[in-house]
């Protein structure tokens, strides 16, 4: 481990600008002549638009124009798409309803964009938006997934009869049914996974700039994947060909999945900039964020888990209904299918698994990936079921898990995934020891003496990260490949720029990617800059989501570094008249092994650019590009334990300790990894105890502000106890598995298992608010 290399706790290079107010986020951007946009949005969950009258609005002070969906359509701007094709079990393709960036004749959720107002100031744009008169014909609404499938439910898209988008399955139904029929015990449970709003602290924003002279567009946007945004806007939305469209995602204030997608506003502001001849900036306010940022989760599932007489799981049967909202967002179809059902084996050897998933339209915000994306839903379902089974079977939750752990690798599950490495018992043991599991009974007695209820719960999670092998995801319906690209550009004086298609919006890539290079070459970390987030600088990339930046993005950097090192060694060998095979790179020097001959790194760089004395036939320069396509997913896993104390008078839950034991494979920077786990756990605590998106029957969003949607705050959370186990990932050169989502995946079931342990029964749904816990305690009496 070097001081600045892999494994070192290096403080972040990017921190100073954020700490001194010098970060540059999209809303901080201003350009000459820039004007402000405000969107007219549907106040109804479902309605026909009979007429739009913008006459009065256009006459208001400062207003430049008001543009609607018919104009957008007339200019040939395409509809929004879902980029992952899923086929129903009868072979028919998913039924995608049309999603116009600006609604043309029908609005399908509160917040659906109808028109854009462009004005001199944001206040004037907002004033004028209120003066746009729209004649609506209200239609009946449905917001719950199960209700949307019921006969006679309001029809949301003509393309999807009965609101059913697809009815998909995975696994062997017959084998599962037989095992259940023959089981010694079957645990049955219904699982609700509550709907969440991702809530990065930076609201979405975009600045569209059309250059008349060059017929060129620039889009500043709050994106996790600017190249994907350019690709989709170019190939599907007809905004502009790729060479005429530059997408820049500067500093981005958190994403958690919600900034993966290309939303209507980016497209519309670019188009509006051309229509009006001025740069157009739009910044979401928080209520708009609740109304329009893709939501997460919202599953209803029925589960049966079969056991033999030795408490070994023989089969798992899952029937899930997933709410996808009013339109199919970019990766919405993949989340409740290949990112969910493929993880239903968890850490356990389960011979037979079958999952059926129906996805449905409702009059709510589109639902897509949110931190974990399908894997939290799978883990919550499985770990609540395991806990329930342990209670029914009268064995300890740890013992039931140990009995069923997968212990040899590679392990092929019945649901596609091939686990490559892991040691689940090591994490379980580490977590139980850190939590003093054996001392719990005494602590419970102490709590009872104070009139409190105490409970403890665990969760053993696994996830699939490092998405993903392009051919594999292509065969499953993905519309894109999920490789990553990198370029290592050595300057003439030896300083280095690393260009990556990964995008940092809090993850600290400017530090960790530089650590990789510093460790390899032995050059100071200050001499390395990481460049990302601009399609004009980085040639191509697939962006950051699914904990892929380390496992996939950094592996691409490794490949590019390999090429740079190979060329540098050739040059050094030539300069020192040595054999190329004898050159080693250490501490910023290229040395001839076993001799005192060396040449400094900067001198090799300089030689490559002066080109006065290069090996015969060698091109000048020292700059290499690589694409890395992973050969497998990676499988982070671990064990989380929560211990809670409940006040039976108020129903308030106090998290008295939270322990996380994670196996992320090799770790580049433990400080940053710990930060990712802390943040993930906080979001999981949010889901388990606080957060819930709530619509009324008319499709009005009741939780559209921080007054109504309970974000975790500092005094809702404890400090966390963390540890790491390590079984390196065999499929990528760095042995990395990924750490970005684990906290949000592993924590909700640990907490609900702890709370249900304290209250003595299982009738509790997330979020376990004081009211719900208090009510649950009354039914226990």
């Amino acid at each position, binding site marked *: 481990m070097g001081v600045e290399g892999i494994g070192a706790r290096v403080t972040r290079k990017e921190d100073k600008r954020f700490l*001194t107010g010098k970060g540059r*986020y999209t*809303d*901080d951007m201003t350009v000459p002549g820039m004007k402000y946009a405000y969107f007219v949005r549907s106040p109804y969950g479902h309605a026909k638009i009979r007429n739009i009258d913008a006459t009065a609005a256009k006459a208001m002070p400062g207003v430049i124009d008001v543009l609607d969906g018919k104009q957008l359509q007339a200019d040939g701007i395409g509809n929004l798409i879902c980029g992952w094709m899923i086929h129903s079990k009868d072979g028919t393709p998913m039924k995608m309803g049309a999603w116009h960036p600006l609604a043309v004749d029908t609005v399908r959720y509160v917040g659906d964009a109808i028109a854009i107002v462009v004005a001199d100031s944001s206040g004037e744009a907002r004033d004028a938006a209120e003066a746009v008169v729209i004649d609506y014909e209200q239609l009946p609404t449905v917001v719950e997934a199960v209700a949307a499938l019921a006969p006679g439910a309001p029809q949301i898209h003509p393309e999807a009869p009965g609101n059913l988008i697809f009815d998909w399955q995975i696994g062997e139904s017959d084998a599962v049914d037989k095992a259940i029929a023959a089981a010694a015990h079957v645990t049955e449970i219904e699982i609700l996974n509550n709907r969440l709003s991702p809530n990065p602290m930076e609201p979405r924003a975009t600045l569209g700039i059309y250059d008349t002279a060059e017929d060129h567009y620039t889009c500043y946007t709050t994106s996790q994947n600017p190249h994907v945004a350019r690709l989709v806007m170019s190939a599907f939305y007809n905004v502009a060909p790729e060479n005429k469209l530059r997408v820049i995602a500067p500093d981005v204030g958190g994403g958690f999945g919600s900034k993966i997608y290309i939303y209507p506003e980016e497209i519309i502001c670019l188009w509006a900039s051309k229509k009006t001849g001025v740069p157009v900036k739009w910044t979401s306010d928080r209520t708009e964020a609740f109304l329009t940022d893709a939501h997460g989760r919202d599953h209803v599932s029925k589960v049966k888990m079969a056991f033999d007489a030795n408490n070994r799981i023989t089969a798992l049967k899952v029937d899930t209904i997933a709410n996808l909202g009013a339109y199919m967002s970019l990766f919405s179809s993949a989340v409740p299918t290949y990112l969910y059902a493929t993880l239903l084996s968890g850490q356990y050897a389960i011979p037979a698994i079958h999952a059926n998933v129906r996805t449905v339209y409702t009059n709510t915000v589109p639902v897509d990936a949110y931190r974990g994306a399908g894997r939290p839903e799978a883990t919550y379902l499985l770990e609540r079921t395991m806990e329930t089974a342990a209670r029914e079977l009268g064995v300890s939750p740890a013992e039931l898990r140990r009995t069923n752990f997968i212990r040899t690798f590679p392990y092929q599950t019945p649901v596609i995934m091939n686990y490559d490495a892991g040691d689940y018992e090591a994490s379980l043991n580490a977590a139980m020891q850190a939590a003093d599991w054996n001392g719990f009974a005494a602590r419970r007695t102490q709590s009872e003496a104070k009139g409190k209820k105490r409970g403890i719960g665990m969760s053993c999670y696994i996830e699939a990260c490092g998405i993903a092998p392009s051919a594999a995801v292509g065969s499953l319906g993905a519309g894109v490949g999920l490789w990553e690209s990198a370029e290592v550009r050595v300057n003439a004086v030896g300083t280095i720029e690393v260009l990556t298609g990964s995008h940092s*919006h809090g993850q600290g890539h400017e530090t960790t990617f530089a650590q990789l290079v510093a460790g390899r070459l032995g050059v100071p970390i200050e001499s390395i800059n990481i460049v990302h987030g601009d399609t004009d600088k980085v040639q191509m990339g697939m962006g950051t989501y699914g904990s892929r930046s380390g496992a996939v993005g950094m592996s691409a950097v490794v490949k590019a570094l390999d090429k740079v090192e190979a060329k540098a060694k050739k040059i050094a060998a030539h300069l020192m008249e040595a054999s190329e095979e004898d050159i080693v790179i250490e501490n910023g020097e290229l040395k001839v092994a076993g001799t005192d001959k060396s040449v400094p790194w900067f001198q090799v760089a300089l030689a490559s650019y002066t080109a006065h004395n290069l090996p015969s036939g060698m091109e000048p320069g020292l700059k290499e590009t690589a694409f890395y396509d992973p050969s497998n997913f990676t499988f982070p896993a671990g064990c989380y334990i929560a211990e809670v104390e409940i006040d039976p008078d108020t129903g308030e839950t106090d998290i008295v300790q939270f322990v996380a034991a994670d196996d992320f494979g090799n770790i580049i920077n433990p400080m*940053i990894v710990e*930060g990712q786990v802390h943040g993930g756990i906080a979001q999981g605590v949010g889901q388990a105890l606080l957060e819930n998106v709530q619509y009324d029957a008319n499709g009005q969003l009741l939780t559209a502000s921080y007054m109504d949607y309970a974000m975790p705050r*500092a005094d809702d959370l404890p400090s966390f106890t963390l540890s790491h186990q390590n079984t390196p990932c065999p499929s990528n050169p760095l042995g990395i598995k990924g750490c970005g989502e684990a906290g949000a995946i592993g924590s909700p079931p640990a907490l609900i298992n702890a709370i249900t342990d304290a209250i003595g029964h299982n009738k509790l749904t997330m979020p376990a608010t004081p009211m719900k816990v208090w009510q649950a305690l009354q039914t226990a009496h």
Partner: protein
Amino acid sequence: MTKVTLTVNGRAMSGECEDRTLLVHFIREKLGLTGTHVGCDTTQCGACVVHMDGHSVKSCSILAVQASGSTITTIEGLAGQGELHPVQAAFKEHHGLQCGFCTPGMVMTAVDLINREGGTLTEETVRAGLEGNICRCTGYHNIVKAILAADAEMATGRQAAE
């Protein structure tokens, strides 16, 4: 339009704005100090915290015209050019920030908290003191650590000065 005059980070500054303009928008758009952020519209998130006449305020909860005549410190003016205030340094040392968006408000709140209760802070009182600032990235774990470390360091500094 009304003229607003403020002393911001030690310099006299003025600008014209509509009466309805919030202080945060005046600071960001008229004065070009974009370190102060807007994360919500209900005064809940604290991304916009600045110091007004030495005390922390949410600059989204006050009109620019109400603030006229006051002395404002924003994140840009907390330390000298190129330097870090001990609270900023502690946030870096303890990884108290990730995406950086809530960070300016967090730091300004933390400085005010230490100014008011320095030397007596505990994990519990720091957590209570951050009730008005939301962070979605860090789970607050390292923010709390950073503030306690900065408080200890600043207390040592005060003792040395006495």
